[in-house]
């Protein structure tokens, strides 16, 4: 049986979060009425000239710095020529020979916690096209050009990935970087991140690459994994049956979990690139690049290392908490209020994440604020409430019962009883009320007593409505029961 190796390279288009378009002053806001955000430049009206958006340049440079890439001093815009009704000018303004971001690398983390590096070939700026609506408009196609001219950063990897899991880890790493940098909202459902996946297979040990197929427009982490899995199997079966993979563009069909060949046009790849005469070379000096570097926030990998080394979290906890900027900021706010990183990490990943998952919410939508959670943890740490009562308080905060843990503790009378006299009183009552269980306990040997004491602890906790300190209850009970 032949062993096969999968080779994957990705082209990821990231929609940049600018206010206006890459070459015009029209808005990029999502969801506007058709063609209300397509100005004369976007429509390719005669006589108009593009002027490059400074923020799109700044965002591309920040991305380059985040992936350790060279930022060349000069980059150029070129025209990629093809005809399609949602491309009004008959060309897409893009970059090829001298892109704005040169070779770099991204660190990816796999499920087992191991890390590896994926090389970036380059990243370039370009404009998006409009949208074609193929529903029937009197037998015609409808065109909405609001998206035309929206800035995209196309990030091209080297063929460095060897499995669907690695490809997904890579896209997740890019997603974390662009959202941390704030250069994209990373919303895959709205098309802010779109992937073209290049897949080929080769016999294990062979140095030369096999013929690749390009799968277009795969729009979720899950689809990337499924599209690759299907495509790998298709190619291996094809070759094992004596066939050959042809270089082609395929589309992923999420409803059937399969890829299909698109109708190939012979001239499909003849884009006749040439330098755009309407745009001058872009020059970025060292001072500009340094300025952008100074504006960058802490990146996911830096955060992960700091959480691990300075806050003493485990590698796993640090990885989970640094995985998104919203999660990391929430965790740090909780930690700052309660003063204990480990406790903050446990609560954020435990009770909070469980509740968010159950109700399918993002951390940004959490009904419990970081300040509230931090305040709750403080009350556990200073022994005001027991761990068990804390869960009640958390649920009450989640349900919006009051504004702070303190208010709920007060209203529900959850303050932990640590006064020995009071606890002894409750214990005596429970012992008096349970003569049968007390007799059984006293007849049992030491090994069995350990289990049986749980009944009494439960009764005392119930009597105290969860407010007695469980450690105290346990030791006082043991003394009293063992006495006779």
């Amino acid at each position, binding site marked *: 049986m032949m062993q096969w190796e999968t080779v994957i390279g990705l082209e990821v288009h990231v929609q940049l979060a600018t206010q206006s378009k890459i070459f015009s002053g029209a808005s990029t806001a999502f969801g506007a009425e058709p*063609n209300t955000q397509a100005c004369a430049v976007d429509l390719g009206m005669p006589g108009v000239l593009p002027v490059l958006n400074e923020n799109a340049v700044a965002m591309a440079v920040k991305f380059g710095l985040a992936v350790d890439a060279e930022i060349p001093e000069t980059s150029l815009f070129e025209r990629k020529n093809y005809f399609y009704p949602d491309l009004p000018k008959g060309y897409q303004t893009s970059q090829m020979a001298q892109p704005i971001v040169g070779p770099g690398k991204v660190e990816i983390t796999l499920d087992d916690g191991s890390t590896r590096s994926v090389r970036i070939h380059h990243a370039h700026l370009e404009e998006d096209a409009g949208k074609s609506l193929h529903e029937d408009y009197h037998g*015609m196609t409808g065109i909405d050009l609001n998206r035309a001219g929206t800035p995209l950063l196309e990030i091209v990897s080297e063929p460095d990935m060897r499995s669907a899991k690695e490809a997904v880890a890579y896209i997740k790493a890019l997603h974390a970087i662009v959202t941390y940098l704030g250069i994209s909202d990373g919303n895959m459902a709205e098309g802010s991140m779109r992937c073209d996946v290049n897949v080929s297979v080769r016999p294990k040990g062979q140095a030369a690459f096999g013929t690749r197929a390009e799968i277009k427009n795969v729009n979720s982490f899950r689809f990337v994994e499924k599209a690759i899995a299907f495509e790998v199997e298709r190619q291996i079966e094809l070759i094992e049956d004596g066939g050959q993979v042809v270089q082609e563009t395929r589309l992923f069909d999420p409803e059937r979990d399969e890829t299909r060949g698109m109708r190939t046009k012979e001239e499909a790849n003849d884009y006749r690139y040439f330098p755009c005469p309407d745009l001058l070379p872009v020059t970025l000096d060292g001072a500009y690049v340094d300025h952008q570097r100074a504006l960058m926030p802490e990146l996911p990998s830096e955060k992960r290392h700091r959480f691990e080394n300075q806050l003493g979290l485990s590698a796993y906890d640090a990885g989970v908490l640094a995985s998104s900027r919203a999660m990391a900021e929430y965790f740090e706010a909780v930690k700052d209020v309660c003063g204990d990183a480990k406790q903050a990490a446990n609560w954020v990943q435990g009770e909070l994440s469980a509740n968010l998952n159950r109700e399918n919410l993002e951390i940004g939508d959490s009904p419990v604020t970081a300040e509230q959670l931090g305040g709750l943890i403080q009350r556990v740490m200073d022994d005001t409430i027991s761990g068990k009562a804390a869960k009640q308080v958390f649920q009450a905060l989640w349900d919006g019962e009051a504004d702070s843990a303190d208010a709920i503790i007060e209203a529900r009378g959850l303050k932990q009883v640590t006064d020995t006299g009071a606890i002894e009183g409750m214990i005596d009552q429970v012992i008096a009320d349970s003569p049968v269980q007390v007799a059984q306990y006293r007849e049992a040997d030491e090994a069995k007593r350990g289990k049986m004491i749980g009944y009494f602890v439960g009764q005392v906790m119930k009597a105290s409505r969860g407010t007695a300190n469980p450690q105290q209850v346990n030791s006082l009970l043991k003394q009293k029961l063992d006495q006779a």
Partner: protein
Amino acid sequence: MAIEHADVLRAAHLARVGLSEDEATGYVDDLSRILKMVDQLQAVDTQDIIPLAHPLDATQRLRPDEVTEHSQRERFQACAPAVTDGLYLVPRVVE
């Protein structure tokens, strides 16, 4: 570099320019002579010369990221052959 009849038709198709057979034959001759001139240029040693991206010795001016254009849909669509619900209509694109 020689150019053939089929090359001219292909280039015309890529640019969506309609050419008759006779016109195409004429262009084979014209373009061949242009390419001969290019061949002459190829003889020059350009090893140490950085390709010229733009004839003007200037760099791209950048604009601040501000929305300055507002909807003029009615005006733009006044010259469109067909519109519906704010969309431009074009002959059906079959995927």
